[in-house]
């Protein structure tokens, strides 16, 4: 078992980890999540006795790492896939680590087989890809057959097959009763691998709970309800009916309604009583990714800004979105052949279903076929709407969660 009590690490004025307390229990995979720079690696280094905490302590099996007798037989760690002398072969690298802890050389060949590097064992690790480096690092962690394993971002750089392999390996190690502590900034990956989550942001504990609890605590389940597209009055009727019955109704961009606070059968009954036909009534659960974003949005250190491309806008004609960006996504609703004549910005929040669009114009059919009269060679829209790119560029939203709900 890994335990952190009031773990704090300061570098000068910057606090990397602040008063972190948690336990990592054996028998489950515990995911350690946080955005970049949130202190995950620092915490792991402190657990391994590499960095000294400013205050607090981290113990493994009740003892500080540095006081563990023959630590490599009890604790295995992958901290950095690139932490290998490039001139040394994979086998020599593992061999010198094995010798450090008195592990026989045949174990080296075993773990090389486990991670699938036996064919390149004699090659110098300089030429290894990041994925191969990760496998080598995992091999090093497995060398001593330890009861406690720490992996810092083990799936970075792995191909899908490798990711699946790591996922299964982690689960298998945990199923054998070991303590498995895996850091990642990929929530979706942790959702599949971990049973328990420890989430930190800016060095502070945000959550310490099972994956299931994490989702339900950070996101409410909701129902998606859609009324016939051509009949907005039905939608309004249903909205007020559901509201009166105590549900919270939020209109989604595609015209559907997001309903919370009412069970699905009740929604159906209410719609029936109000004589509203439903095209869709489906249960939804916010994804783990959404819940994670929601939780850490205040604790992200590095945010991207919108690329204004100032001074870079004079793209040659024809460069840019085919058919003219301002029309592209919502073309169905408008008569063809009127580029740049004051139609509303199609990216602005609006509801294509509210228009008298044919049912075939489902979301996702953004680009109209040329036959519909949308001229591919239409006058370049940038020429008429100089500010158009800045307004219409799909802006990377720092917190997509706000969009999603």
């Amino acid at each position: 078992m890994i335990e952190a009590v009031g773990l704090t690490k300061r570098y000068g004025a910057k606090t990397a980890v602040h008063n972190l307390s948690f336990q990592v229990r054996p028998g489950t995979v515990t995911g350690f999540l946080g955005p970049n720079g949130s202190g995950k690696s620092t915490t792991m280094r402190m657990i391994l006795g590499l960095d000294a905490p400013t205050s607090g302590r981290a113990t493994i099996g009740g003892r500080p790492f540095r006081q563990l007798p023959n630590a490599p037989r009890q604790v295995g760690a992958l901290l950095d896939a690139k932490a290998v002398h490039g001139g040394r072969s994979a086998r020599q690298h593992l061999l010198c680590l094995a010798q450090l802890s008195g592990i026989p050389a045949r174990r080296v060949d075993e773990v090389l087989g486990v991670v699938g590097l036996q064919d390149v064992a004699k090659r110098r690790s300089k030429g290894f890809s990041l994925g191969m480096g990760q496998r080598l690092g995992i091999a090093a962690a497995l060398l001593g057959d330890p009861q406690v394993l720490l992996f810092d971002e083990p799936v970075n750089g792995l191909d899908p097959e490798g990711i699946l392999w790591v996922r299964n390996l982690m689960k298998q190690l945990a199923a054998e009763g070991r303590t498995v502590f895996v850091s990642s900034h990929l929530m979706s990956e942790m959702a599949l691998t971990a049973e328990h989550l420890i989430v930190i942001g800016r060095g502070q504990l945000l959550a310490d709970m099972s994956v299931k609890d994490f989702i339900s605590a950070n996101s409410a389940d909701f129902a998606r309800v859609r009324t016939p597209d051509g009949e907005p009055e039905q939608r309004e009727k249903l909205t007020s009916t559901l509201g009166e019955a105590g549900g919270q109704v939020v209109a989604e961009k595609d015209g559907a309604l997001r309903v919370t606070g009412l069970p699905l059968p009740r929604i159906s009954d209410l719609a029936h009583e109000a004589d509203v036909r439903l095209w869709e009534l489906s249960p939804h659960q916010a994804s783990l990714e959404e819940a994670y974003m929601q939780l850490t949005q205040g604790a992200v250190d590095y945010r991207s800004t919108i690329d204004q491309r100032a001074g870079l806008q004079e793209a040659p004609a024809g460069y840019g979105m085919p058919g003219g960006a301002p029309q592209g996504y919502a073309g169905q609703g408008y008569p063809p052949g009127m580029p740049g004549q004051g139609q509303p910005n199609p990216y602005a929040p609006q509801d294509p279903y509210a228009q008298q669009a044919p049912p075939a114009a489902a979301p996702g059919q953004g680009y109209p076929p040329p036959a519909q009269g949308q001229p591919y060679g239409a006058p370049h829209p940038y020429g008429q709407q100089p500010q158009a790119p800045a307004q219409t560029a799909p802006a990377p939203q720092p917190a997509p969660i706000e969009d999603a709900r």
Partner: protein
Amino acid sequence: MAEVPRVLRSEWTKIKSVRSTMWTLGTAVLVTIALGMLICTLVRVDFGSKSINQQITFDPTNVSFTGMTLGQLAMIVFGVLVVANEYSSGMIRTSLAAVPQRATFLFCKLLVATALVLVVGLVTSFAAFFAGQAVLGEHRAYLSDPGVLRAVIGGGLYMTLIALFSMAVASMLRSAMLSLGVLMPFFFLISSILGNVSATRKLGRYLPDQAGQKIMQVIAPVNDPVPYGPWGGLAIMMGWTAVALAGGFLVLKKRDA
């Protein structure tokens, strides 16, 4: 202490599994011997034109070690790389996660590297001596002459201490680039400048390389008021090394890896 033999074995694997070991030590051996032979040839050709005084104080043993001024630079590179490679590759974190006893780790590492350098240094020293004397011909010295064996063994010890000093400096600075940037100009330029300018000569004598080189002299130059003998000089060099080692140890112990 059970980990000591393990760490020693592991460090031996580390040293022999990288090519830089072969390259740096090989260069040190070759340069020292070859340059020594070249200088010996020049001296032999030139011997007749020297003054009587110079002929009397001619030290054939020391002349055959002239190549060491250049060969020691390769030793410095070896010493620096042995330690700094751990940091530049990030291997240090893996190593220290496996051996949390940092003192054990550092001193086992240095012990293995130093033992290797001692063997290479002694071989180089003897080879440089015999090759140089063979070239010098009639002006040569013999191993059985007084003080010569001490000087030849001393040559090996000198190279060893240079390498060990470099390892210690690298453990303090934790970067190959930085360590070489400090050590190379120091041993190649600053030390000889300080030692050749009369105002600073008294200071320069106490620098590690100048003090240590005293042990390779068999016949002291005239008017040489050096206040220490061959072993005294070596002791001064050892003192420098010990201080650097203490610094390196403290850095490893205190700082985050």
